[in-house]
């Protein structure tokens, strides 16, 4: 009722005011809107277009139909290994990283002496630039002279080949990502400190064991953060590019320079991931059409996981008001 009267009596200046407000919103958003159009919408449409074209960057593109798609799925020898590796990272590496991050987060909340030093030490590796971290681990885990294998042999444990052994290269990568678990430690620590103390006290009065307190008080309280860590971890695992690439190159001993060829995913495709295929197809084989096919597969997968993060109900990132 009141609204109707208001609408009827809308002053003549209001329409102009609304237009001004719309313009001001557009003005504030304009950097992003332009960026979105130029650096996402336009290249995305081009990616779809090129996925149906033969194009090597020199001769004008020619129509390929679905040939690039069948090539990638049926004949390109690296696609399925790369997808399998990506799934391995998504399942095993992400699980271990979340568990380890939660463990370190719980440990840090229990530490009472020298907390600041411990927290800084646990956090620092997260900041290590990916290339530097990979170079460091390629050295540490180097089977011949690396300090890790030296120590393992001293205590009589058979030393694995790490980045030189197809069975150990993904565990080696995982170890490196566990080392960089500092970001998860911080968000788990913040979430754990937010769990209401009264709930623990009530559980203790009811005679709950340590495990029961964890299971029925801690876990339900931090489950949104666990989900957040899982989903963002999955997205990061799908994008995993620099570390496996550099590890493979260093382990294979390739001398790198502009345009040098190297065996993708050394050893035996074991560190090949989907983003590396885009590079291999596009910038080593100059088959832009097939590279765009892989790019679209990557796009579909990452958007599927992003949707999980933003579901309307129970989503982890809410727009809010």
């Amino acid at each position: 009722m009141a609204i109707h009267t208001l609408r009827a009596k809308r002053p003549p200046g209001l329409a102009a005011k609304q237009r001004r407000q719309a313009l001001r919103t557009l003005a504030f958003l304009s950097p992003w809107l332009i960026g979105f159009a130029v650096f996402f919408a336009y290249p995305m449409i081009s990616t779809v277009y090129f996925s149906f074209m033969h194009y090597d960057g020199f001769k004008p593109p020619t129509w390929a139909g679905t040939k690039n798609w069948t090539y990638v799925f049926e004949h390109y020898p690296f696609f399925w290994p790369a997808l399998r590796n990506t799934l391995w990272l998504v399942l095993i590496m992400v699980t271990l990283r979340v568990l380890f991050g939660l463990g370190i987060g719980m440990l840090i909340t229990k530490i009472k002496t020298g907390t600041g030093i411990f927290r800084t030490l646990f956090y620092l590796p997260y900041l290590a630039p990916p290339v530097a971290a990979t170079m460091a681990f390629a050295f540490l885990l180097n089977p011949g002279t690396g300090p890790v294998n030296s120590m393992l042999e001293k205590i009589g444990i058979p030393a694995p080949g790490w980045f030189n052994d197809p069975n150990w290269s993904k565990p080696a990568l995982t170890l490196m990502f566990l080392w960089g678990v500092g970001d998860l430690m911080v968000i788990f620590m913040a979430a754990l400190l937010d769990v209401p103390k009264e709930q623990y006290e009530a559980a203790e009065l009811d005679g709950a064991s340590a495990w029961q307190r964890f299971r029925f008080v801690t876990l339900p309280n931090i489950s949104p953060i666990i989900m957040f860590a899982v989903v963002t971890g999955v997205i990061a695992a799908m994008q995993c590019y620099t570390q496996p690439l550099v590890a493979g190159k260093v382990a294979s001993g390739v001398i790198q320079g502009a345009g040098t060829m190297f065996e993708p995913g050394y050893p035996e495709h074991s560190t090949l991931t989907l983003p590396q295929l885009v590079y291999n197809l596009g910038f080593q084989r100059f088959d832009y059409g097939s590279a765009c096919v892989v790019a679209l597969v990557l796009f579909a997968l990452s958007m599927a996981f992003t949707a999980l993060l933003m579901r309307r109900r129970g989503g982890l990132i809410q727009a809010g008001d």
Partner: protein
Amino acid sequence: MTQVLDRPVELKVPASPAARTARRKAFLEWVAVHSLGVAAALFFALPFVFVFLTSLMSDSQALSRDLIPHTWEWANYRKVFDTPGFLTWWKNTLIYAGLGTLLTVVSSVPVAYALAKFRFRGRNLTLMLVISMMMLPPQVVVIPMYLFWAKQLDLSGTLWPMIIPLAFGDAFSIFLLRQFLMTIPNEYVDAAKVDGCGDLRTLLRVILPMAKPGIAAIALFQFFNAWNDYFGPQIYASENPGAWTLSYGLESFKGAHHTDWNLTMAATVLVLAPVLLVFFFAQKAFVEGVTLTGVKG
């Protein structure tokens, strides 16, 4: 107050056997937690220690299995700086990180402000698109982007294809800053309006001073993104070593010195050290940024 005064009466009772076992249990727990802490600290710290020690070894010792250098070869670091190109990579990295950070902050602040404080149709959709962009692997659009920069604008072999896009807002920065601005009460905005401030003045005079920690966080993250970026330089700058950055050059450094782990580790320390140094001066902004994206969603 009274509660506090009431308590000590109970505490003064001589320790019963039950209280003693409880204390012993607490002590054992302290020992267990701190031993675990020390074990974890070794896991996190030893890679740094070994890298640093190796960077000070002689050429021949770096190929042996020794863990401690016999002679401390500080000259290794000078050798790294004398490697052709190394100083250029520093310069390029600082340009990419510095200019990129500046452009990101300037272009992302108004967008984040609008998403946090304006009410308009399509706001949730815009926010969802921002989050989607944040999650998008750069490889998805790299083919057309490369063709655009290299073939149409002839800018491959320069830093520009990496820097210019940052003048149009960065999704992660917009999202993080928006999360931060949401924690500033709307009353400040309303009060500024009542005082007759326009939107731009409200943003510059009222919100910006309060948003300093958020801006510091996005600036730091963006700086390190550029510092850490490997894919961008690999795509756009690989053909011209004069445009390489530290992260990209580091790997080629290993290529050129492929047996010299000592020099490679010295170079690695030189890529790592600035990051750690900046962190010590800006810990708070970092940790706050990480929590903002994860917890206060």
